[in-house]
């Protein structure tokens, strides 16, 4: 069974923000919310790296673990989705998420956050596939259309990969072999030190 994953090749990302724009446009994301964003470290200095970040659809998602109303669920494709009808906007998931994926529209008075919004891997929500209600709450359902998330499909340098985890891992491995140095993955040396050769 295919397991949906994102993988950003930090060696290829040029911080063009096309993925951010594509996501906002495709899913009609409201003002103030970015389901995807590009993070840059050492900006303007040697060793500058950019990486496109969104919900990583964790295997054991911490957002789901802390949700007091249990509004999260995982599909057969291993995409982590949530029900906006159940969400109470408590913000626990935002604190639990290591990627800062959950966002809040902040539409209410007195600092209330509103219903949480996050990347759906372009897989909609609990409403009927491709229905107007689903689009209004969660954005488009490209997976049901036989497509992949638009952020990855739009990436001009093919930095952002999305789809079956096994297939995109194979694509990335081939790139690494062709480059002939390390994995090129961001934080690799921090995690595995110099001693691990690829």
């Amino acid at each position: 069974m295919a397991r949906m994953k994102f993988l950003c090749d930090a060696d290829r990302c040029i911080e063009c923000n096309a993925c951010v724009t594509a996501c906002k446009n495709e899913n009609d994301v409201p003002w103030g919310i970015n389901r995807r964003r590009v993070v840059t470290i050492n900006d303007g200095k040697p060793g500058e790296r950019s990486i496109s970040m969104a919900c990583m659809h964790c295997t054991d998602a911490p957002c789901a673990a802390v949700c007091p109303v249990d509004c999260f669920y995982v599909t057969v494709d291993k995409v982590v989705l949530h029900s906006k009808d159940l969400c109470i906007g408590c913000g626990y998931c935002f604190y639990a998420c290591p990627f800062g994926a959950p966002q809040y529209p902040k539409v209410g008075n007195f600092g209330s956050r509103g219903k949480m919004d996050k990347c759906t891997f372009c897989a909609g929500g609990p409403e009927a596939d491709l229905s107007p209600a689903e689009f209004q709450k969660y954005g488009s359902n490209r997976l049901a259309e036989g497509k992949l998330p638009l952020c990855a499909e739009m990436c001009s340098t093919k930095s952002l990969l999305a789809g079956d985890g096994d297939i995109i891992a194979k694509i990335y491995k081939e790139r690494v072999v062709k480059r002939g140095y390390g994995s090129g993955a961001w934080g690799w040396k921090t995690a595995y030190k110099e001693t691990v050769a690829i």
Partner: protein
Amino acid sequence: MSEKKTKEALDRRGFMKVVSLGGAAAAASVAPGVITPAAAYDPGKEETKQRYRETDHVKAFYRTNGY
């Protein structure tokens, strides 16, 4: 004057008494059997079904990313 004040105070106490008794009665009227246990969101098969398919569109994406 003081008599009027006392009467008002008594009225207020009466009101509070009625409210507290009413509240207790309302709480007592909920039978233990009627209380429904809290249940986590249990999505159906339709919500969690497989949507990913390896269509020609998806295959083209994988092919072009291999370059």
